[in-house]
C-alpha cells in the first residue's frame, strides 16, 4: 500500500531577495537589474534532503528545536511551499491546521466566515450547511455565531478556525502547534477529535514541542535538526535521544555563559571600579547582583560541578548526586578561614546555605593549593535553574574571596512537581482507593 504522505530527499532553500533596501523598482530599473534582483542573493536551507513516509492511518510527531525546519516540512506537505528539490506525494484531501482562522474577515459574522473559510478549505456550500451546527457546537460559539468576528476573543477566534478546519473531514491532517489555543476543556476536545481521526484510519502529521503529546499519541516520531532528519522511529526512543541532545546543548550554553560571567568579573577595570561598591554589597548578603569581591588572602581559582560519574556538567536530574569542587589557594598560610556555599533558585530565593563554621569545623591552618569538595548525595530539587554562591572568608565574615551567583546549573525532572524541594516520599492508600496506570 502506498503511504499517505511520502517525502523524498526534500530540500527547501529559502531565498532572500537581493538586499531589501536596494530592491526597489527605481534602482532595479536604473541598474537594469530587475532579473538579477529577482534571483536570490542569499539562501537559507530550511530542509536538507529529508525523506520520510507516513503510512495510512498512522500518526507521526515531528519534534525539534525552533528553526529546525518542522514548520517548513509541514508547509511542504501541505503544498503551501514547493520543495527546491526532491518530491512530495500526499494521497487524499489535506487539511492543514497551521494558522487557525487565517482567512477570517473581522467585519463579518462568524456564520459568514464559517462558510467562506469552509469554501477556502475545499468544501461546497451544501457540505458546510450540513456540518454547520456541528462546527458551531464544537467551537462552543452558539450564542455568538452571528456577531462579527472582530468582537471575538482570541480563544473564540482560534476555536472557530479549528472547528472549521477539523470538519473538512480530511484524509490527511496536518497540525502545527495549535493545541495551545483553548482552555483545558477545549484541548481535551481537540485530542478526542484527533483520537477519533486515528480510529477512522486517517493520517496525522503533528508538529509540536509537547513531547508528552508525541509520546502518548504518535505511532512514530521524527526529529529534525537544522533541517536534517536526525532520527525516525519509536517515539520513546526518539524523544529520549532528543532530550539528551537538548541537555548537551544546554550544557554548552551554560558553560559558555559561565565563562563569560567569570571573564567579566575578572576584568581588572571592572573589578577595580567595583571594589568600593562591593564592600557595601558584601555586607548585604541578600543583594542579588552577580559579582566577586574579597581581600584575596585566599583565592577560589576554579569552581566545577561534577555529576554522578565525576564528569563536569551543568545539568543534573532530580535525585542525582552532585559535587561542587572548589580549587583554592592561599599564597600565605592562613589560620582563620571558613568555606561556604549557597544555592539560590531563579527567583533569588536561598534554597540552602551552609559553611564549615556553622557545621563546626574549627579552622586550623591552610597554605598553598587545595581542593574543597562539597558532596550532595541526592539533589532533591524540582526542575529549574539554580545559581551558586561560593566563598571563603574569616569567621567574622570578612571575605577573602566571595563569588556571588557566578555559577549556574540546571535541574531536570520528568515529573513536573512544583515548589523548590522534593522530599523523598511515597504514597500509601487503603485497598479501596484504586488507580489505573496512565496511558
Amino acid at each position: 500500500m502506498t503511504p499517505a504522505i511520502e517525502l523524498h530527499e526534500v530540500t527547501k532553500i529559502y531565498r532572500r531577495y537581493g538586499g531589501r533596501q536596494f530592491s526597489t523598482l527605481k534602482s532595479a530599473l536604473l541598474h537594469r537589474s530587475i532579473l538579477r534582483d529577482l534571483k536570490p542573493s542569499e539562501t537559507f536551507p530550511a530542509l536538507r534532503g529529508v525523506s520520510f513516509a507516513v503510512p495510512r492511518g498512522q500518526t507521526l510527531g515531528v519534534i525539534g528545536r525552533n528553526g529546525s525546519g518542522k514548520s517548513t516540512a509541514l508547509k511542504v506537505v501541505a503544498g503551501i511551499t514547493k520543495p527546491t528539490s526532491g518530491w512530495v506525494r500526499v494521497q487524499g484531501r489535506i487539511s492543514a491546521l497551521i494558522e487557525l482562522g487565517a482567512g477570517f474577515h473581522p467585519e463579518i459574522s462568524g456564520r459568514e466566515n464559517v462558510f467562506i473559510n469552509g469554501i477556502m478549505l475545499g468544501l461546497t456550500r451544501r457540505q458546510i450547511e450540513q456540518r454547520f451546527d456541528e462546527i458551531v457546537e464544537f467551537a462552543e460559539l452558539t450564542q455568538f455565531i452571528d456577531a462579527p468576528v472582530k468582537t471575538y476573543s482570541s480563544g473564540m477566534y482560534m476555536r472557530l478556525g479549528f472547528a472549521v478546519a477539523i470538519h473538512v473531514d480530511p484524509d490527511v491532517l496536518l497540525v502545527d502547534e495549535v493545541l495551545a489555543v483553548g482552555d483545558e476543556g477545549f484541548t481535551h476536545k481537540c485530542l478526542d477529535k484527533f483520537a477519533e481521526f486515528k480510529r477512522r484510519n486517517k493520517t496525522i502529521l503533528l508538529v509540536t514541542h509537547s513531547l508528552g503529546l508525541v509520546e502518548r499519541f504518535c505511532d512514530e516520531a521524527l526529529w529534525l535538526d537544522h533541517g536534517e532528519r536526525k532520527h525516525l522511529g519509536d517515539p520513546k526512543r526518539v524523544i529520549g535521544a532528543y532530550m539528551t541532545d537538548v541537555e548537551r546543548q544546554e550544557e554548552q550554553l551554560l558553560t559558555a555563559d559561565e565563562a563569560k560571567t567569570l571573564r567579566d568579573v575578572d576584568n581588572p577595570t571592572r573589578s577595580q571600579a567595583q571594589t568600593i561598591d562591593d564592600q557595601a554589597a558584601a555586607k548585604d548578603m541578600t543583594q542579588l547582583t552577580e559579582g566577586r569581591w574579597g581581600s584575596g588572602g585566599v583565592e577560589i581559582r576554579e569552581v566545577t560541578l561534577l555529576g554522578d560519574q565525576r564528569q563536569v556538567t551543568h545539568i543534573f536530574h532530580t535525585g542525582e548526586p552532585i559535587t561542587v569542587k572548589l580549587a583554592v589557594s592561599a599564597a600565605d598560610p592562613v589560620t582563620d578561614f571558613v568555606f561556604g556555599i549557597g544555592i539560590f533558585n531563579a527567583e533569588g530565593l536561598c534554597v540552602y546555605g551552609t559553611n564549615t563554621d556553622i557545621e563546626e569545623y574549627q579552622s586550623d591552618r591552610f597554605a598553598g593549593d587545595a581542593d574543597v569538595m562539597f558532596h550532595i548525595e541526592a539533589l532533591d530539587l524540582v526542575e529549574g535553574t539554580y545559581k551558586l554562591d561560593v566563598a571563603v572568608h574569616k569567621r567574622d565574615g570578612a571575605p577573602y574571596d566571595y563569588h556571588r551567583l557566578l555559577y549556574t546549573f540546571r535541574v531536570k525532572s520528568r515529573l513536573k512537581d512544583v515548589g523548590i524541594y522534593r522530599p523523598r516520599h511515597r504514597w500509601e492508600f487503603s485497598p479501596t482507593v484504586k488507580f489505573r496506570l496512565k496511558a
Partner: protein
Amino acid sequence: MWSNLASLARHRPLIQSLVARELKARYRGSVLGFFWSFVNPLMLLTIYTFVFAKILPNTTPETSPYPVFMFSGLLPWTWLSSSLLEASGSLISGGNLIKKVLFPAEVLPIVSVLSNLVHFLLGLVILAAFMIWFQHFPDWNDLAWFPVIVMVQLVFTLGLALLLAALTVHFRDIRELLGNLLTFWFFATPIIYYYKMDTVQDFLWLFKLNPFFHLAVSYQEILFFHGETPTGSSFGHMWSLLALGGASIVLFVVCYWVFDRLRDSFAEAV
C-alpha cells in the same frame, strides 16, 4: 500554466463568496451601509459637474448635457482605477492566506476587480437616473454592445491587475507610483473632455495608443452620442474595440504567465 488557468473555473464558488464578502464587509458599520455604492458615484458626479458647469464651463455643444457625457466615461474609469489600486495591494494584504493556507493566489486580484465591477454596475443606476433627469437617452440598438465593452474592459483589467499584484509583492514602490500614474492616465483619456475637440485631434495618434481611450470612447458612443455613422449607428468605434478585445486577451495571457512564474515566490516574499 494552462492547467492553473483551467482550475480557475473550479475556484468559482470561492471567488463568488469572496466578492460577496468584500461587498458586505466594505460598508459594515457605516450608517448608510450599502447605499454608499450609490452615494459615492453621486458625490463624485456632483463635484465634477460643479467644476465643469460653473468653474470651468465646458463649451463643447456636443457634450451637452455634460453630466451624462462625463459620467459615461467616469464610471468605467473608476472601475479600472480602483480595481488596479486594490489589486496591487491584494497579495500583500492577503499575505496570511498565501503563507498559511493552500490558497490560489490569483483569486485575490480577481476578487478586487470583480467587486469593483459590482460597484460599477450599481453606478449605472445613477447614470440611468441622470439620463431620465436630463431626458437624454442612448440609442437602444447600440446598447446591445454594452456587455461586449464591459467584457473587453474586464479582460483588460484582469490582466493588468494580475501583473500589478505579482510585481508589487517584489517592488512595493509600485503601489506609490500607481496612484500618480493613474491620475496621469485619467487626464490622458477623453473622459472630462470631448475627443473630437480640435486640440485633441492634433494628437489623435498619441491618444490612440492609450488602450483606455478606446474603451472610454466606446462607452460614450453607446451611452451618450446618437447616430453619426453611415449605418445610422453611433458606435463607430466598434472595430477598434474588437481589436482592443483581442489585444486584451493576449495581455491577459501574458500577465497570467508572469503571475504564474512568480507564484512560488509569493509565500516567501509577501
